[in-house]
């Protein structure tokens, strides 16, 4: 079984900031997007079960070594990094274009993506990539069960009222959630082995995408302003005994017309 995991390198949660106007500051360090680690973990388990190879695919204008090395240390066989300065400022449209172009150069039975990203928050790149490639799209996965014999994959898709069991022929595209289970920590051995693993660096020319169709110049969305929200007043602290504390809470809620 061959699995490609779309792994986005995002600014470390809690440290995100903007530079030069509206650019995301990537100099302060990048980590693997949280949801992408869940699908990576699910993919690694499937490779352990069925054999085969898991490759990560990252698009990022700057080196994303920490995120990629961690995925390799967790067990990915190799990594592909589409890295080109022209990618800076790309929106979801360009990201979908580039990732689908890169996937055309790779072989797979399954492509995995996270349900959404901590920085972009769109949750749409997966559906866009699947549509561009003409792949069946199975989203919000809480469980992924391929059947290599039958050539199909079954997914538990979270719904508003429980879950749907959905199925499609492979190759297929699956976007997954936290319910797939906690990602493993890289072992020391894994970290050592990761140093020998291949990180292929592809340019836009390598994937056959025109630089003019990506990056800030081609972006279909523009930021007008970015401002901190109005500051919170700071907490009123209550340290009284439970009876009094409870009264204070109710008084506070009443003063704000919340009870």
């Amino acid at each position: 079984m061959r699995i490609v995991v779309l792994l986005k390198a995002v600014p470390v949660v809690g440290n995100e900031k903007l530079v030069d106007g509206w650019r995301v500051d990537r100099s302060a360090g990048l980590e693997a997007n949280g949801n992408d680690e869940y699908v990576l973990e699910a993919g690694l388990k499937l490779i352990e079960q069925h054999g085969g190879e898991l490759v990560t695919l990252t698009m990022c204008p700057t080196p994303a070594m920490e995120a990629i090395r961690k995925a390799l240390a967790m067990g990915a066989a190799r990594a592909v990094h589409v890295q080109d300065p022209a990618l800076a400022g790309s929106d979801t449209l360009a990201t979908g274009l580039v990732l689908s172009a890169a996937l055309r150069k790779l072989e797979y039975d399954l492509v995995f993506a996270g349900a959404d990203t901590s920085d972009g928050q769109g949750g749409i790149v997966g559906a866009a990539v699947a549509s561009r490639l003409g792949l069946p799209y199975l989203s919000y996965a809480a469980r992924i069960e391929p059947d290599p014999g039958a050539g199909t994959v079954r997914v538990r898709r979270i719904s508003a009222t429980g879950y749907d069991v959905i199925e499609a022929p492979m190759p297929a595209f699956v976007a997954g959630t936290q319910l797939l289970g906690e990602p493993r920590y890289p072992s020391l051995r894994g970290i050592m082995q990761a140093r020998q693993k291949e990180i292929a660096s592809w340019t836009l020319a390598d994937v056959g995408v025109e630089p003019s169709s990506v990056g800030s110049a081609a972006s279909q969305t523009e930021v007008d302003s970015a401002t901190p929200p109005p500051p919170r007043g700071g907490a009123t602290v209550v340290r009284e005994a439970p009876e009094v504390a409870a009264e204070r809470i109710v008084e506070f809620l009443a003063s704000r017309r919340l009870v």
Partner: protein
Amino acid sequence: MAGEIWAVGEIADGQPTRLTRELATLAAGLAAASGRTARSVLVGAGASAAAESLAAHGPDVLAVDVDAGDRPVAAAIAEQIAALARDRQPSFLLVGASNDGRDVAGMLQAMLDWGALVNAAGVRWQGDGPQAEMSVFGGRLVTQSHLAGDHGIVIVRPSAVAAEEAAQPGAIERVGAAAVEPLPAVRVVDRISEASAVVSIEEAPIIVAGGRGVGGPDGFAVVEELAEALGGVVGATRAVVDAGWIGYAHQIGQTGKTVKPSLYVAAGISGAIQHKVGMQTSGTIVAINRDPDAPIGEFADLMVVGDLFEILPRVSAAVRARRGG
């Protein structure tokens, strides 16, 4: 003539979803501000029946009665909207930030090659197009963004506007399903209902959330009691979801839901950054924590230091007493 603004709807139990009604009201408002025409579009089984109540919000409704059969609805909606959009050339599509809505938006982005403003907490008309307000970087920044071209998709969060009925209801136009090149087949084999999954925390005005401090699945009883007394719903941290004390549908934070209730009560929650990003734009935040130095104190409005098991039941009783019950 300047292109129309479409609200792309969803149907659940034969009715337009609450988010769909909000999109209709939003489209009507944007149309009024821009002199354009708003329209709601409903695709699915029973679309023209569901269109009756959606039309009450003002915009005319295009209803495409097409049964997705055993396919997930998002693909059927996206195919039909793409065909309609090519035919009628609207400028802007408002799509809800639900699971199905985000799938529809991603498919439409690829099929139409349109840009998308994602996760909008508010939308208004600015210049020549919609301007979306987004909360980014864990709520530390609020951005205003617009679409560069004269068309695009705006993905709108629940409660960006309140759904309102219009003085004049819209008309309903039934449209035959377009013959489309279908997206690759995915088959729904089974639909499973789970009581624990049915909780609309994204729409709730009051949330009482419990964290690891509740100590175990039974500890949630005091949280539930307060939620009930206040007329709210129960939220949770990932720690307690991972522990299996409560269902994932309740989880708030980076890999759970983003919420913005008027009141958020955090009981036994430390306030880790990944939790904070999902709730810090709440109106009023009240924290109950044994640890005076818990990070939640840094962004709460009221920080109560103490044992939640001693405090919550007393608050519930006092709230009930106030309500005279």
